[in-house]
């Protein structure tokens, strides 16, 4: 009994000391991280205002047909996407852009993904070698084009080897100067492609990559591969992600872009110059967070060679993508994302505080280390100490509530500021109900969601540190072929000229991960 009491006394001393030592720095950390988000928002607002002004003076009809706009190859990696692949490809083919092609890379699907494409587009095999300018280990099994000779679609079939290799295969097969990587389960706004490629025509010499906004598609009405009605999801887990995407993935990235330090373009919707991707050797198949890694590599190459370039984020072009609605899938996603951030930051740790990388080395990367990578550890650690101190009676409950109230209250204020910007500038979610839900979600986010995601992110970083085998998973997709979709009649079949045999059944070596 005495030993137990002594242990508790020791614990009280340690936790008490820890509490005295960390309470001010912890609060300062919360203030700093949230203030940095506010600063990014202010920077983003300046850029959004300029973009909006210019958009009002731009002839959008002309941009959608201008010969000056460079062609875009939309690379769509697909693995077991039978449910929605046809609607998705039809939607991509009908985007408003003067010159674009769609390259579907069937990454060894074991379902009817390929058959669905063959049936809809009347594909025929072409015995064409895919260029080798980007290294890919998996074998290309066949290349197929529509028999009508005019639909700008290429389907590349390859042995299953993961999304990154599928994207690299698509880059190899692409024939146009720009590459847009789009997830097969994503839906782009009709003008999104024209809008996201605009920086390449506005500043053709310097622009090397651009990114658009990814918004949750859950709850939206999708017909014929188009978002025809925007609404919030029905599940609170997805609703909270709407607010989170708004804060971190839209205005946050816009602010980083304004600083000249955008290091993450979402894998669900980014455009790159093909020659740049070839020059850097394509996406890194070894890195879990291939989307952040590829942008980091571009920065490193261009800055170290002192080449003038721009990586731009745009707030208007929108890609709608399904977000996880089950905690299990969300956990897997967040672990993977955070592991990706860890791997990329660790790989490029040498860029930090190096003069040749400018703001990137002195501002953006330290920010990512301190406020993105370390944030979940610090948040959970701080929370644990406060709760322990509360349990041991070191701090009184009133003080603990105040402490946590200020820490999470500032985060709430930041989220509300982002919602206000969304409402004033973009107003994509109509109806008072949606506004109320957004505000409620920004409050609810602080009760459990933040803490859980912080835990999952910690585990992701730990997985990265110990180089654990990546845990792949699948996300149940509803597909975008909604009941209201009016299927177009199939194109009239023409006699086949190809003698290429049909591709063999493919072995599946791994399962693919989900979403955005």
């Amino acid at each position, binding site marked *: 009994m005495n030993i137990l009491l002594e242990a508790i006394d020791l614990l009280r001393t340690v936790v008490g000391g820890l509490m005295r030592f960390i309470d001010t720095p912890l609060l300062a950390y919360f203030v700093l991280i949230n203030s940095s988000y506010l600063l990014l928002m202010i920077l983003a607002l300046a850029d959004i205002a*300029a973009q909006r002004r210019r958009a009002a003076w731009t002839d959008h009809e002309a941009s959608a047909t201008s*010969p000056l706009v460079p062609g875009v190859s939309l690379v769509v990696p697909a693995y077991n996407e039978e449910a929605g692949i046809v609607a998705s490809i039809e939607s991509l083919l009908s985007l408003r852009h003067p010159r674009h092609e769609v390259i579907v890379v069937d990454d060894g699907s074991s379902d009817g993904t390929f058959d669905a494409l063959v049936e809809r587009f009347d594909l025929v095999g072409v015995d064409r070698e895919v260029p080798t300018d980007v290294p890919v280990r998996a074998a290309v099994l066949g290349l197929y084009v529509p028999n009508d*000779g005019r639909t700008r679609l290429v389907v590349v079939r390859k042995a299953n080897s993961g999304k990154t290799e599928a994207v690299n295969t698509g880059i190899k097969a692409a024939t146009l100067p720009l590459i847009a990587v789009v997830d097969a389960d994503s839906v782009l706004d009709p003008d999104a492609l024209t809008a996201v490629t605009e920086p390449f025509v506005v500043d053709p010499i310097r622009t090397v990559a651009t990114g658009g906004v990814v918004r949750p598609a859950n709850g939206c009405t999708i017909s014929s591969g188009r978002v025809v009605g925007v609404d919030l999801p029905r599940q609170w887990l997805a609703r909270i992600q709407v607010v989170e995407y708004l804060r971190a993935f839209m205005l946050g990235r816009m602010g980083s872009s304004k600083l000249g330090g955008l290091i993450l373009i979402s894998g669900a919707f980014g455009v790159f110059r093909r020659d740049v991707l070839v020059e850097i050797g394509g996406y890194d198949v070894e890195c879990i967070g291939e989307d952040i890694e590829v942008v980091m590599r571009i920065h490193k190459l261009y800055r170290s060679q002192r080449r003038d370039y721009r990586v731009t984020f745009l707030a208007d072009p929108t890609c709608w993508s399904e977000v996880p609605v089950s905690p299990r899938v969300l956990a897997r996603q967040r672990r993977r994302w955070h592991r990706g951030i860890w791997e990329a930051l660790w790989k490029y740790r040498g860029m930090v505080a190096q003069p040749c990388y400018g703001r990137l080395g002195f501002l953006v990367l330290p920010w990512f280390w301190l406020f993105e990578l370390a944030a979940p550890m610090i948040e959970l650690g701080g929370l644990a100490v406060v709760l322990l101190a509360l349990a041991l009676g070191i701090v009184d409950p009133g003080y603990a509530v105040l402490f946590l109230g*200020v820490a999470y209250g500032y985060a709430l204020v930041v989220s509300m500021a982002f919602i206000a910007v969304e409402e004033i500038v973009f107003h994509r979610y109509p109806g008072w109900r949606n*506004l109320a839900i957004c505000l409620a979600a920004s409050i609810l986010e602080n009760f459990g969601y933040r803490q859980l995601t912080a835990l999952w992110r910690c585990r992701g970083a730990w997985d990265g540190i110990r180089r654990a085998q990546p845990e792949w998973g699948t996300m149940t997709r509803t597909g975008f072929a909604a009941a209201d979709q009016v299927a177009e009649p199939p194109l009239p079949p023409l006699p086949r000229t190809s003698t290429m045999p049909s591709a063999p059944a493919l072995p599946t070596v791994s399962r693919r991960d989900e979403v955005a």
Partner: protein
Amino acid sequence: MTGSRGLLVASLTALIAVAAVLVILTVQARLVRSHRDRALAAVQGRYRHLLLEVASGEDEDRRAWTELADLTEANWRRVQPAVVALLAKVRGRPAQELGALLDVHGELVRARARLTSGLAARRARAAYVLGLARDRDCLPTLTTLLGDASGDVRFVAARSLGLIGEPAVSPALLTACGQLPGMREGHTGVPAWVAAESLLRMGAGCQDAVAAAMTSKDVHVRAVAAQVALHGSFPAAVGPARVCLLSETEPRTKETLMALLGSLGDAQDVPVLAAYLHPLVPAPLRRAAVAALGLVGTPEAAARVQPLLADEDRSVATAAGDALAVMGTIGRDILTEAMTATGRQRRVAAASLHLARLRMRAGEAA
């Protein structure tokens, strides 16, 4: 701890107050927007049929125009944005009619006065309206605005000059595509796209200025000039392009110049373009040269492309196959012959012919 407790209470109170303000701001923003949209829709709805009649050119008796010209100032202020939006979409007589409508309500006089306003947003809006109204009287002022301190004003001035379409201002527009005095390294006066679109609107009248700009020291100016010469099909630019191709340092401008020589050049360009087929030349330039030779389409060009069907670089080999496929009979004969060979060239030729047949069936290719 008492001191810090006080601070925490003060902070929490401040945060709650800010959160409340943000909620009020958000709700107010939505209320204001809804109210404004409804009011605008009500007024514009009342006059929409008149506007559409004018914009579609069906207002032959000018009844609709007269009714719009007689609007009270309060109603005109609400209809004006719709007129400006329509003006951006129409050309010819309807554009003149809508421009006259702006004039009769004093918008053009006001806009001319605002071109020298101290506020950049006002200058930009004024330049926009004058451009849409194709107001030639303001050409000198708009040209001056190409050197304005505000990027927005330069942007709108360039676009408005394109809408007016006077080729005499093209040298100034081309200069504005580059780095203007006092600007940071790499920054340009006018975005390349806006300048190029405006120059293309000016038509062949600006081709001499474009040809001259191809030798500019500024890489951004050269890039715009090459793009405009290519897409405008300016024959005057072919000579300078031949000279500039050799000295050009920017790879993508070099590719544009090759495409220009391919589409507008002739047999004398074949040796120059063929020099870029060497294996040591970067692949994008090799592919651009192959595509350009395909466009030249002479037997000599075909002969230069033929060996590349067996090139080590598959992307160049594929480009060679596709270039031969678009050359017509000469190229297709070479591809057919290559199909009897062995190795890579047989496969490349077969694929290119296959795709060409599909496209021909679709009526896209020669």
